[in-house]
């Protein structure tokens, strides 16, 4: 991998798009401050990545042959430390959910982009890469799986299930309670109370509780409880909502209902590992938290953020 602990003077950016005018335009924005390379297709981008450690990869989604999510997934395998951004004019839900679960993207940016906003996002991505290189993050998936039984159930970090539907809550608790302590909540305040009083490592939540998207809650919790890992379940996925969950919630996974039980177990195990990794390095957890985009003021929902802060500090 030949990873260096620090960045070169000019961070390396790789842009992928099948429309070359987009590439020209992007290059014109960044060429003064960054070492920019461009690729006209996914395959070309992968080729470049193999020989050139890009710090940030920005890809279009809708491309012939290889989609953006495919590119990001391959990139994550070749260069795990490269921060990945999706820049797209329109994405279907599958692509968006895939970009979270498979691409583990840093941000989702819509076309047409705002020049300054894109600059800020890229700068944040470069910073995230630098930190990742310094922290030398370990992958979530270990080479040899650890036997789960070596640690007792009670010692495992707890899982909080936030869901307004009682039957679904119980079904989830039933599936998960064999491996780790499970706590349940049916409203935001319930959830805050559980997080305050129990040791919680991950939150499995319905995308909306009582019609209110959970984005605000997750965004607020990031700074207050660094190291929490979020899995979002959704029945009626809303593209914009999931994009928000990526940008402002930095959620770990999004699972679409109906959910396969083995997929759920696997995802929860991965999330637990991630939490443990972050729990061992609180500084790194805090760093990652800082990378979460702040909610724009107009979207901060009726002082819920303040409520969260107040509640957790009480």
């Amino acid at each position, binding site marked *: 991998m030949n990873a260096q602990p620090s960045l070169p003077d000019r961070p390396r950016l790789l842009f992928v798009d099948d*429309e070359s*005018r*987009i590439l*020209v*335009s*992007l290059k*014109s*924005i960044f060429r003064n401050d960054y070492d920019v390379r461009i690729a006209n297709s996914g395959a070309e981008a992968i080729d470049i990545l193999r020989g050139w450690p890009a710090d940030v990869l920005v890809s279009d989604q*809708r491309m012939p042959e290889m989609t953006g999510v495919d590119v990001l997934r391959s990139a994550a395998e070749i260069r795990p430390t490269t921060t990945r951004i999706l*820049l*797209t*004019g*329109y994405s*279907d*839900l599958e692509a968006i959910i895939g970009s979270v679960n498979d691409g583990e993207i840093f941000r989702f940016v*819509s*076309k*047409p*982009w705002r*020049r300054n906003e*894109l600059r800020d996002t890229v700068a944040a991505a470069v910073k995230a890469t630098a930190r990742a290189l310094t922290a030398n993050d370990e992958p979530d998936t270990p080479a040899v799986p650890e036997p789960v039984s070596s640690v007792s159930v009670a010692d495992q970090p707890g899982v909080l299930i936030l869901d307004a*539907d009682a*039957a*679904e809550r119980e*079904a*989830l608790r039933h*599936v998960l309670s064999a491996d780790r302590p499970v706590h349940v909540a049916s409203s935001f305040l319930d959830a805050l109370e559980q997080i305050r009083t129990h040791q919680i490592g991950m939150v499995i939540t319905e995308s*909306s509780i009582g*019609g*209110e998207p959970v984005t605000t809650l997750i965004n607020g919790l990031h700074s207050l409880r660094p190291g929490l890992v979020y899995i979002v*379940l959704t*029945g*009626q*996925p*809303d*593209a*914009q*909502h999931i994009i928000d969950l990526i940008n402002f919630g930095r959620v770990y996974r999004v699972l679409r*209902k*109906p*959910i*396969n*039980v*083995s*997929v*759920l177990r696997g995802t929860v195990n991965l999330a637990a590992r991630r939490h443990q990794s972050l729990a061992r390095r609180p500084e790194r957890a805090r760093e990652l938290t800082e990378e979460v985009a702040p909610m724009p003021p107009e979207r901060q929902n009726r002082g819920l953020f303040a409520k969260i802060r107040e509640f957790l500090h009480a």
Partner: protein
Amino acid sequence: MFFRKWIAVLAVLGTVALLSVLVIKSQQRPLDARLASDQLAQINYSTRLAEQFSREITRTRITRDTSFAALDGTVALWESADARLAADETGLADGPDTGTTLNRYRSAAAQRRQELADFKAAQLTFITAFERLRLEAENTLASLLANEAGIATREQVITLLDELASYGLQANPNNGGRIYSLMARLNGSVPAFEQAAREVRAAKDALQPVADSLTSDTPVALLDQLGAQVRDAIAAQDARIEHYTLALAAFAGALLLVFSLIGLRLRGSFNELDSINSNLEKLVEQRTDELNRTLEELRMQQAHLIQSEKLSSLGQMVAGVAHEINTPLGYALSNVETVKESLAIVESAGGLSDDAQERMVEADVLLEDSMHGMNQIDELVKGLKNFSRMDRSATELFDLNEGLETALKICQNQLKGGIEVERDLSELPAIHCAPSQLNQVFLNLINNASQAIDGTGVIRIQTRHEQDQVTIRISDTGCGMDADTRAHIFEPFFTTKAVGEGTGLGLSIVFRIIEDHGGRIDVDSTLGAGTTFTIPLPVRQTRTASASAAALVDDAAEPPMSAALQASA
């Protein structure tokens, strides 16, 4: 079935035949009746003549008539009466009983008339003998001496004469004896007289049996018997007729009973039929109602299908268009910003001529305008995406003012010209709803409002929040509509537009959507003055719109909760 039909026909024929027979049999035949009375009259006539004959005989004997004129007249009448009695027309000879009796009578009568000759001879002999006796008596009495013996003889002669006279007229039991004793007493004293007396007595004795035989009542008795037989025959016929009448009455009664029973059964059948009919009517009515309901549902479903098809294809189109527009828009906007920045750098470097400087300023303005235009394009595409809600959840918390603004933005093109839009929007709480559907409602109503306005006019959009309810009011100053149109506007496929211009689905969909959201839609319209639609919606939904939303928007259906977790295979 076939046999039953024939049996019924035979039964009817049998009944009619029996009835006819009974009617005919029970009729008194007028011919028979007249015949019988004729017979009786003839019999009576013959009887009267037979009796008259006997009376004539008696009278002839008493009056010592020797002409026999009256007797012969009676006999002639009697004979002709008997001939008529035996004639074929009377029909008496045909009857078995009456025939025999008639024959017996006729032979008896004929015998009587034959005996008449004997009677006449005997009568003549008697009268002649009696005349001689009278002459002999006068002679004898004149010859008798007026002595004792003569007087005694005279007395004896006179007594004998009296006895003989009464004997000759009507013999009584003592006459014969006395005559014999008187004759014995005379004992030849007056031989001529005695001879004459003996002759009278002999003539009388010869006449008596003949007269007795003639005056016997045998023919009359036979005629009586004949009459009795005729009357018996009439009585027998009457009795027979009476039997038939009785039978007819009984049969008629039986028929009446049968008809009553049939009538009763018919009535029962009719009642049953009536009730079946009324049930059938009810059933038909019920079925018709069901069919109408089904038809209505089908129409609704069709309308929904068309609508969801429209929404779905709109969503797909928007998805494609959004990508196609956003890509060029992306670099165009970005490039303009870059160029603008570059120009600023060039400008700040200085050393430009006045003309170039001016052009720089102008270029900056133009670029600013280009950015504005592109931002507008971006907004429009976002509006389309928002409107189609292709990848948005079916129900969410939504600010209706935002929906109204989106709809207005999409309708913008139509609202140019003389149409002024007045916004009177209050702050609304976000309500739990299906935004794509409500957007559809707003777009429809604003669209209709703009189409109602010909030339210049005002569309007024008002929102209000009162406790648990938000109210949206969209009014226009357009053409309005009449009561008839107003009554039908919410029906599927009702349209006032020309064929091909509108599907007539708009307001029926609007109605359904509002209903699904637990709201109501009221319309107030004055022809020529304008129309106002008022929609009150509950802030808290009593029933979730997600079920109907699932039917309207593909891929948005929430799986049942139990299916939210799928066991691994």
